[in-house]
């Protein structure tokens, strides 16, 4: 990998305690169980996986809404676990987030203009006029009209709201933007517009994106690097082109085979996974994917596989498909 690393995660985990009534010990839910990755200036890391695999937990850790249970998370070279409050405050400004649901992510009682100015109001000493100018500038940048400044969120469509959410994330000139399924709540025709907007802004501000999604066709469109997660662990990660062309891990291959391709003449190898995602409270021993894996053998049950390099991809599997 090349370029400026703005965020580095080393084996970060996040466990939750789950109370199970007075007579049982609280269980440990391993929402995220050891993830390592880097975010690079101007590049997009896509995080892919089915519901409950820890994607959103990862987003909460990277945006510092929650602290990791263990591991190292460095933003701009500073470890956020050991950093003092003042430094942490500055780091907070560098990471912003865009949520999935544009209907829940805007305060219904706050005018758009005020929502955009709030980051400046609480973080900087800018005057009223400057803030207003900055807000109007960004409104223009995300393709909205200046007269929207005085409107309430309920007057906008989903796509427009998502533009506003993107605009708000950019108000503090962040270096990293976490996009937590930013288009999955939108109409397909609007999805493309928002994706284009996101791509344009990345170019313009040299942003590092962490793009969380379960839609592989969207990921293929926007990502530079892809990380596939299963039950709190990244199982395969690598550059988009290698990963989409030569998926090694059986789970990645199953995911890719489930994506519809608009080509009626292509014969498709359809891998159907059986069973459900196991509970993260009691994950299967060994490789967590083994109960659903088509190429499972004895060793998969005993020992979790360590990720290792195959053609530039980090794969955690004993039986990867080789090309």
């Amino acid at each position, binding site marked *: 990998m090349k370029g400026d690393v703005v965020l580095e995660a080393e084996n970060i985990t996040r466990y939750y305690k789950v109370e199970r009534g007075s007579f049982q010990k609280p269980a440990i839910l391993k929402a995220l169980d050891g993830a390592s990755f880097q975010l690079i200036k101007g590049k997009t890391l896509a995080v892919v996986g089915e519901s409950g695999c820890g994607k959103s937990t990862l987003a909460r850790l990277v945006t510092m809404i929650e602290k990791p249970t263990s591991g190292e998370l460095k933003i701009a070279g500073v470890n956020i676990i050991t950093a003092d409050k003042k430094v942490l405050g500055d780091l907070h400004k560098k990471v912003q987030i865009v949520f999935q649901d544009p209907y829940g*992510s805007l*305060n*219904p009682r706050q005018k758009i203009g005020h929502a955009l100015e709030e980051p400046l109001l609480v973080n900087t000493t800018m005057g009223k006029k400057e803030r207003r100018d900055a807000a109007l500038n960004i409104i*223009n940048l995300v393709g909205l009209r200046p007269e929207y400044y005085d409107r309430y969120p309920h007057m906008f469509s989903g796509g427009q709201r998502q533009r506003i959410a993107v605009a708000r994330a950019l108000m503090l000139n962040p270096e990293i933007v976490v996009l937590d399924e930013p288009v999955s709540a939108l109409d397909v025709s609007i999805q493309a517009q928002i994706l284009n907007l996101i791509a344009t802004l990345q*170019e313009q501000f040299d942003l590092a994106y962490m793009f969380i999604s379960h839609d592989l066709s969207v990921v293929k469109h926007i990502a530079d690097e892809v990380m596939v997660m299963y039950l709190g662990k990244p199982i395969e990660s690598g550059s988009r082109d290698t990963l989409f062309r030569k998926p090694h891990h059986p789970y990645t291959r199953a995911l890719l085979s489930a994506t519809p391709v608009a080509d009626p003449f292509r014969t498709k190898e359809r891998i159907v996974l059986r069973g459900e995602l196991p509970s993260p409270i009691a994950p299967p021993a060994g490789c967590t994917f083994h109960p659903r894996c088509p190429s499972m053998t004895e060793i998969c049950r005993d020992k979790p596989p360590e990720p290792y390099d195959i053609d530039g991809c980090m794969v955690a599997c004993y039986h990867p498909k080789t090309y």
Partner: protein
Amino acid sequence: MTETTMQEGIEEGIIDSRPTGFMADLREFWSYFSENRGAVIGLFFFIAVVLIAVLANIIAPHLPNEQFRDALLQPPFWQTGGDARFLLGTDAIGRDMLSRLIYGSRYSLFIGCIVVSISLVVGVILGLMAGFFRGRVDTFIMRIMDVVLAFPSLLLALVLVAILGPSLINAMVAIAIVQQPHYVRLTRAAVMTEMTKDYVTAARVIGVKSLRLMFITILPNCMAPLIVQAALSFSTAILDAAALGFLGMGAQPPTPEWGTMLAEAREFILRAWWVVTFPGVAILTTVLAINLMGDGLRDALDPKLKRS
């Protein structure tokens, strides 16, 4: 590239051209509120009571404590022996009932306002803290509120007044304390619902501090149920104050407070029906009007009942 995205954004067009601002909100509110006829009647009655209270010294034919020694226990004017000077008759020491009732409305509204303000402000702050910080703060506040709720409310108010000493102010404080838990619970529940929403997380990521988050981001979104509760407990406050007055623990004679008037008239209940009936009717109609109005408010403010 920038050009095209901008273009696309504008072509999406204005989805909603409804007018904004306070007047539009008010108009929408009225359209829901006016569907409920009882609520409108209640509102007009309440406005009338407010006007009577404000203009008491112009409307009232006499002063509330002015005694007419020649007219003790005079019946209302339409009964034999009635006097046109005293439209609703006089009480045992010759004070004009109508004037006392008119001045009494001032006390009732005053009690309602003060009690609601105290319990609303304190309740909102405690509820916000409980819902926002959760954990130990939450447990501590809510258990205290549960203890307060465990007492029959009037009994607790009586005990408090007995400790503080009987007076109108102390009665109001006691009633405010008794009503507190309802506000705390309501606020806490609303805050907990709002806390799970993404906009709160977004505000955190932006760097909004706790205090601003509580009062500026979350609180305005919790106001609808609180307004309804405030309207309904306004009437409870009047009722409780009247009950305390009746038991001799609220406003002290010769204050023309409705409950106190009832208490003073107790011994004449068989001889002179008007001295007990009119204060009772005054309390009844005012409380009824406010309750009807509160129901209308709930219909108008509860988003679950709204047709979009």
